[in-house]
């Protein structure tokens, strides 16, 4: 799973989020590093919807503009959880080895 996809799934993970909200969330979660463009976001959302990992939760009109809120499906929750666990395991391995190297030298 690509990092952008992972972050896009993370944004609505605890409820629902609309398109621009996802862009803001992704920027915050990544510490400003990942800045999604509208084009990138919507091609990702289209394929995530096709894979039934997210669905449209509801639509609102704010200031005359359409806002579509997305939420994870059970399948989406599962995929995100599995991917997060995989990343965590890899990160833990790296940090453990780094600490180990430190311990042996001192």
């Amino acid at each position: 799973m690509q990092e952008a996809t992972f972050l896009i799934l993370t944004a609505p993970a605890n409820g629902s989020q609309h398109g621009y909200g996802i862009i803001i969330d992704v920027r915050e979660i990544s510490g400003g590093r990942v800045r999604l463009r509208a084009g990138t976001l919507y091609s990702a959302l289209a394929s995530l919807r096709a894979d039934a990992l997210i669905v449209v939760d509801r639509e609102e009109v704010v200031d005359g503009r359409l806002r579509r809120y997305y939420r994870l499906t059970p399948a989406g929750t599962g995929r995100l959880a599995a991917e997060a666990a995989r990343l965590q395991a890899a990160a833990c391995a790296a940090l453990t080895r780094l600490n180990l190297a430190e311990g042996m030298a001192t």
Partner: protein
Amino acid sequence: MTDQADLERGYRRLLAWYPREFRRENGQEILAVLMAGARDGQRRPGLAAGAAVSAAGLIIGLALIISDIQVAARGQFPGHSLTADKPLVITVWIVFGLTGVSLWLWTARANGQGRNRARIQSTALFVPATLQLRGTVTRPGSHAGSGVTVLYYGGAVLFVAAWLAGGAAVWLLWRPASTAFFKPPGSAQALHQAHMGRTRPASIVQGTVAASGVSRADPRARAWPGVRRADRPRVSGGADARPGAARQRDDWASRCVPSPFR
């Protein structure tokens, strides 16, 4: 016409490049996101529009070659036949067209990020367009059908329009007001120029280096000071580059708890 309405019209035009089905489903929503993401006072979608014009040029160029082939195939002009080099011409055309579009998109992105090299890049992209201009106004051969002529002049008008727009963009990019955007006050290059009081080739080089990210702090570099061995925190006591580095390592280690998902 307000800035908002101008910008919205510009974005709507760009959305026309999406397939109709996709646009009907997502167009309103994407437009809302584009408008929400626009800078205050922004009136145009930016240089990405240049890429769209490039694409249009590519399509018209292809149509020209194809109709040329059809004319040849019909044997309407006996001097020419469908020669083997036509596929090569088409391939070269597509490669050049796609390269042009990618260059425009890359430049547009750099411009949006306020990188100074983007201005230089835009100007450099403008030069081949100027050289191409001479070829564009050459008349098509009299043997070509009227359809070809219409396509040809249509393409030429579009190309000249794009060239004029490009020239205006390059001129605007080098205005003092734009300089404030590309060299924010306090940047190394702005300070340098404040000292020197003029632009020198050296400062342009420095600006390019600065824009390439060497002087802009990369959040990744802050999070972990380097994958390279030389950048790692020192192992043996001594002068660790970052105070508190040891404490932070402990934090990381404590976060390594067994995953609840396994």
